[in-house]
């Protein structure tokens, strides 16, 4: 399904390592299963040849890893960035979270990544291997004799179904062809919820957020959540907590989490991708993005380095908080 192949990336990585341009490569490493991909630092061509993978399950956004890796590792780091990753990359640069000089960014095209939950929903559990074949995925499981053939389009991750951009906004070098910013329908689901009655919305979120186990994966994967120490870990913040003891704390955590990244969130979708409970957390972020776009004009976090985020900006003509509701109907 991906237009760019593992071999092309491997060749580029090995060449850059050999020339001394970079000292290591931040890439996707093979995990236990084919769909189980682990962010890995490769220091030699041998390590790369052995462990580097690339395919339809390489959704990890490496931008965030640069914050810690550039601090720890010597020399330049080669990182592969999909178009949506480059927005996070820029946003982190805007916030001075890593040294641009220590990174060699290679932009790679992306045809959309697959969601293993969707694959399992079709092919069932016990997946042994997944092979890409043209526009199809061949899934071999423990329980079926023949591989199950799945249309790759049918198992696209939610964020890729509503891909916002195939254009890279930052890179040192680009592999493959540059795409365009897309008109996505990413706000449709938010609009659907907005159209519900408050009671329905409350029921929806109560149900979703009750699943939260406070594993903090959403926070830890989020490229906007790069605080040295999170408020939820800060005993002086008044909101420190570790477990969702009751429904209030689930909401508290997710409201504050989304509020803290509001205006900075690039809508990369990592939060929902990593959520083990499949809570559609990205909808909270998108709600903020949609509101910001409607209230203060279109804004895409990370589109350019140094941009002033909407919530740390203002005009004297901004709408009043009360008017937020006047703009909508009783339910919507």
């Amino acid at each position: 399904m991906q237009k760019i192949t593992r071999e092309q990336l491997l060749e580029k990585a090995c060449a850059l390592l050999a020339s001394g341009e970079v000292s290591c490569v931040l890439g996707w490493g093979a995990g236990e299963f084919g769909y189980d991909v682990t962010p890995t630092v490769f220091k030699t061509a041998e390590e790369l040849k052995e462990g580097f993978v690339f395919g339809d399950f390489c959704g990890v956004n490496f931008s965030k890893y640069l914050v810690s890796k550039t601090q720890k590792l010597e020399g330049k780091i080669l990182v592969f960035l999909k178009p949506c990753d480059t927005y996070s990359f820029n946003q982190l640069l805007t916030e001075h979270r890593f040294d641009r000089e220590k990174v060699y960014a290679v932009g790679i095209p992306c045809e959309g990544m697959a969601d293993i939950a969707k694959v399992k929903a079709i092919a069932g559990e016990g997946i042994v291997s997944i092979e890409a074949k043209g526009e199809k995925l061949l899934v071999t499981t423990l329980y079926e004799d023949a591989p199950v053939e799945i249309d790759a389009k049918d198992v696209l991750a939610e964020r890729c179904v509503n891909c916002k951009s195939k254009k890279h906004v930052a890179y040192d070098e680009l592999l493959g062809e540059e795409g365009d910013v897309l008109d996505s329908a990413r706000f449709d689901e938010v609009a659907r919820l907005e159209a519900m009655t408050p009671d329905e919305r409350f029921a929806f979120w109560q149900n979703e957020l009750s699943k939260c186990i406070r594993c903090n994966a959403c926070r830890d994967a989020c490229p906007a959540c790069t605080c040295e120490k999170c408020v939820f870990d800060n005993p002086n913040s008044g909101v420190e907590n570790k477990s969702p003891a009751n429904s209030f704390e689930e909401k508290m955590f997710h409201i504050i989490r989304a509020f803290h990244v509001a205006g900075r969130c690039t809508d990369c979708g990592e939060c929902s991708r990593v959520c083990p409970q499949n809570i559609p957390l990205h909808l909270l972020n998108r709600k903020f993005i949609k509101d910001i776009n409607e209230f203060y004009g279109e804004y895409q976090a990370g589109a350019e380095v140094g941009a002033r985020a909407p919530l740390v900006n203002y005009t004297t003509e901004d709408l009043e908080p009360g008017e937020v509701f006047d703009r909508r109907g009783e339910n919507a």
Partner: protein
Amino acid sequence: MQRVGVFVCWCGSNIAGTVDVQAVSEALKNEPGVVYSANYQYMCSQAGQEMIKAAVKEHRLTGIVVCSCSPRMHEATFRKTAAAAGLNPYMVEIANIREQCSWVHKDMMTGTEKAIILGKAAIAKVNLNAPLTPGESPVTKRALVIGGGIAGIQTALDIADAGFPVDIVEKQPTIGGKMAQLDKTFPTLDCAACILTPKMVDVAQNEKIRIFSYSEVTDVHGFVGNFDVKIKKKARYVKEDICTGCGACVEKCPMKKVPNEFNLGMDNRHAIYIPFAQAVPKVATIDPNACNMLKNGKCGVCAKVCAAGAIDYKQKDEIIEEKYGAIVVATGFNPISMDKFDEFAYSQSKDVITSLEFERLTNAAGPSAGKLLRPSDGKHPHTIVFVQCVGSRCAACAEKGKEYCSKICCMYTAKHAMLTRDKYPDTEVYVFYIDARTPGKNFDEFYRRAVEEYGVKYIKGMVGKVVPEGDKLKVQASDLIANKQLHIDADLVVLAAAIEPDKSARPLATMLTASMDTNDFFTEAHPKLRPVESPTAGVFLSGACQGPKDIPETVSQAGAAASKVIGLLAKDKLTGNPCVASSNELMCNGCSTCERVCPYGAITYIDKEFRMPDRTTKIRRVAVVNPAVCQGCGACTVACPSGAMDLNGFKNSQIMAEVDAICK
């Protein structure tokens, strides 16, 4: 744990009438940290204060809660009381049980209940209070005035008069600014030069004032009381201290065809020049773009004729570094460009001029030696059309004009029209106006005189277009009162161009971290109550850089700015408000979010080395708040995602504790 004393005030019957003060002091006795609780008729009285002081000693109190009137009333009083008892004044919290309780609630039960809750909230807060000490910083007793027009001159003179040294930085070779170009001033018609030039001489002779002419501010660091400023003194290729201003060099300079900016390009000057006869400093300047010697090394006449030996072709730009305690911005204004107003044929005909050009034409020291002659053919104009609001009050196109009223045009146009009719009674003078705006002492009387005594024809309406035809200017305009379209054959058309802040203001504002509005006028700290201060502490505003102004207003604002500067420089040390933001560097990400919301530029970032638990070191970017600049609004604390930024006196934990106490 604190040892808190609670003092409930009766305020006579003001509080005690609706609140059971005895019950309140009893109830609060059992709150955590409280070791003493009492009530008294008038806590703010001498006796009440003595009672607090005695209790502090007797019960070794570390915190005080006074349940009384609004903190806006007596917080300062009780802080002083605490300080007198040897306690840190910031260990006092007030529970407002008068304005926000006894006075707004009717029955005793609700009043008492609420007073107890408010008391609990104050106790919860004081339990988390920490002693705060206002920071002190020294004050450099020297002021910088940026801009040497009438605003800058007046400010500098007033500051110097109080005994403080002042430096004026002026980008032109001479001080004087726009006022030096004017002919007469409204509404008294005294000549601008007659009242300005003595002040310029005063500046030159004042030993407290230094003038850096032909200079620009290139860098500003520091904060109120302690600014470090770099000033670039551009090479004028003439030794300023040696040049006597005799003008021999100017006379002999062979390069005579340089447009004279002082006369707005209506005549020429030499490559070496003194802008005008009364210039201060009266020193020649060589225009490096026009001088043959500087361009290709061929000439050197001026050096030969200079008896003093002041010419120095090898002079270089010089950077001067100086410390200042206060900075006054007086960068002034300029008329906007008329290029976009094709309908008035400004770029097509030399006889369509701006009002500032008209000033030069009527000025005795101007290009026509004060005779009102048409720039095209030097003939006497018989019909003059003045057009008001050219580019002012223009909401249609931001590139063309300005949305605001330029304020001064109505009056100077009345002046121009009146003077023209006075000197040349055979001239027909039309003024096309939208509204004649003449608020000000003797202003409307002045305008009416122009109409009634001098016969200036004021027509309510606007000029639609001006078309040069032969030696005439065909003016098509509307007369809204007569409901007619007029066609006037004019000899001269004068456009009252809108004024805008000088282009140098925007980069300067960035250097000063002083805020500006969308029109690039400097913003004042408070539009009514602090009109001459910028929100950035230590930066003051004088003259048209803050908004369109006439001369009397400019001078009064200049004096006001000076008095603010004097008030600042008179202090040996600045005591800050200790309730300022501070960042916990262990938690700070250095993400710059807080810096963006700070209206005062109080936050900077440093790269700091941290020792990590694994004994390695790590360099991280962290925010540092300058307590002398921070005013304590708290915008940064909410912008900070990690909660590293907190506000002393209103810490997150303190406000949370209040919330908890109230919601219990």
